[in-house]
């Protein structure tokens, strides 16, 4: 729906990467994707498809989990990110919001947000201005600014995690599963804010999401991952209309919505797998 708002400039280029955990477990088997400036790019797929691993390979958070990229390249603005650490990437404008929110439980909401500005060197005044901006986007956070993050609700924690990332003045946010464990209404609210940030602040998003329905409504372009491979990609509007996507990810078929009873005995046609 917003395909024309993204420009042709590519920010992030992932080329055929392979990721191995603990030297033995092969998780990604050649994933390629690109994230254009000013777009929302969705990375879809079920549990264990490799969405989180892809994001962590980009943000360099794999090392601390004993994973490594063994093949392929990842480039941000044309420069390879291999050998950088997460803090270098944050300084270059790429920050990840991790799955499961990961707020600092014993810090207040405001302190959480301020940790996001850790790598910035542009002074306290600029940070304070951005803090107000984050509060403007997330008025709920402003109400809870003095509460310990551990005592806030799941939705507030998700907002806090996104707000914290915003405090680093990012160009690209790698957003992992923002809908996880949240009520549908809150999911809408959060995706609405993501769309706002994308349009008004010009932040590009790479969004990993299991909730295909919501993700394809807000994203411009989508990649579908299955067991470590990209099996399909295309503009979000096209993916939404694709019969396979409808059937496997949106739970609909030509005969309309299928009940769970039908899907259980349904043999998957792997028509797009090579």
């Amino acid at each position: 729906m917003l395909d024309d708002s993204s420009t042709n400039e590519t920010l992030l280029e992932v080329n055929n990467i392979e990721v191995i955990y603990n030297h033995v477990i092969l998780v990604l088997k050649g994933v390629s994707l690109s994230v254009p400036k000013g777009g929302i790019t969705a990375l879809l797929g079920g549990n264990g498809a490799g969405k989180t691993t892809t994001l962590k390979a980009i943000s360099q958070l794999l090392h601390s989990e004993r994973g490594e990229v063994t093949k392929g390249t990842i480039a941000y603005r044309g420069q390879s990110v291999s050998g950088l650490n997460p803090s270098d990437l944050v300084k270059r404008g790429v920050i990840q919001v991790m799955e499961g929110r990961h707020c600092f439980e014993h810090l207040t909401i405001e302190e959480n947000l301020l940790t996001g500005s850790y790598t910035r060197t542009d002074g306290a005044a600029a940070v304070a201005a951005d803090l107000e901006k984050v509060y403007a986007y997330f008025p709920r956070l402003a109400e809870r600014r003095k509460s310990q993050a551990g005592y806030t609700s799941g939705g507030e924690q998700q907002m806090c995690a996104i707000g914290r990332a915003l405090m680093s003045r990012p160009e690209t946010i790698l957003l992992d599963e923002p809908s996880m464990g949240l009520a549908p209404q809150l999911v809408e609210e959060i995706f609405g804010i993501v769309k706002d940030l994308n349009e008004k602040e010009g932040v590009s998003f790479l969004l990993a999401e299991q909730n295909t329905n919501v993700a394809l409504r807000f994203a411009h372009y989508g990649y579908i991952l299955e067991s470590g491979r990209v099996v399909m990609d295309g503009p979000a509007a096209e993916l939404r209309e694709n019969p396979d996507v409808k059937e496997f990810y949106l739970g609909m078929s030509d005969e309309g919505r299928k009940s769970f009873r039908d899907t259980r005995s349904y043999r998957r046609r792997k028509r797009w797998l090579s």
Partner: protein
Amino acid sequence: MFPDQFLFGVEVLLNGLMAGVLYALVALGFVLIFKASGIFNYAQGVMALFAALTLVGIMDGQVPFSHLINALFGTDVHHFGWHVPAFAAILLAMAVMVGLAWMVQHFIFRHLVGQEPIILFMATIGLAYFMEGFGDMMWGSDIKKLDVGIPQGGSFWIEEATAFLGGSNFYGFFIDQLDIVAAVVAVVLVILLVSFAQYTKQGRAMRAVADDHQAALSVGISLSFIWVLVWSLAGFVALVAGIMWGAKSGVQFSLSLIALKALPVLMLGGFTSIPGAIVGGLIVGVGEKLFEFLIGAPFLGGATENWFAYMLALVFLVFRPQGLFGEKIIERV
């Protein structure tokens, strides 16, 4: 006028408070490292010993590794022949502790990121015994006197000011001036540490790392830097504890055993709370001295100080495992 027995009790209580402050100083070092990295640093006591040895060595102008140098080159060097003033020596010793913090992080814990806590704990045991031997090799194993100019002995002022409280057999409260200095230093140290953690950017990052390594990494905080910082702070606390204990009882191997006194303090105060370390230290100090005075010496044949703190800590563990001030385990319903 109060009965003498009561006044002696009060004096015991005051001395307990002072001893507690010294326990608290050691416990503080444990809390700092445990909070930020989840590492229970068994080597904290040895760090205090090492810091004190280094301080004495620098002040006396001792040649480090003189034994080794003499053995290798057939020389006979022991001292440079100069004396470094206490203040400058403390700064230099602090620099050594920062260097040590960097080496600990660079050579040991950098390679153990993401390992089980028990493995990290084992690494600190190894570190403790390594540092013990290294300290001996560097500065020699003889008992040294540490004098950084802190007044020692009972405070006459307090004795005279309080003598009127009792009868003719009571000469006023006996309180060691060193203990008073230690108490003041401990209070200042805690205020400094708490304000650092609470109000500075690095302090906030330190607490963030303590809460969630992964998330801290994701916002661009460098774990290595924070851990070096934390070990440096623990080294600083060890230095202060080493100075106080060293001035009190000489710098010798047994200094490293004060770590054992800090354990019950930690169980009481909680492993993650700076104020907890202080309050826990005071409770242990006062508790063991009063228990000895009121029950231990008259009824149990004395020497209860060695185990009283552990017994108290056990009771606490059963009823309040996170300690008095330990961070509440946040559980939302």
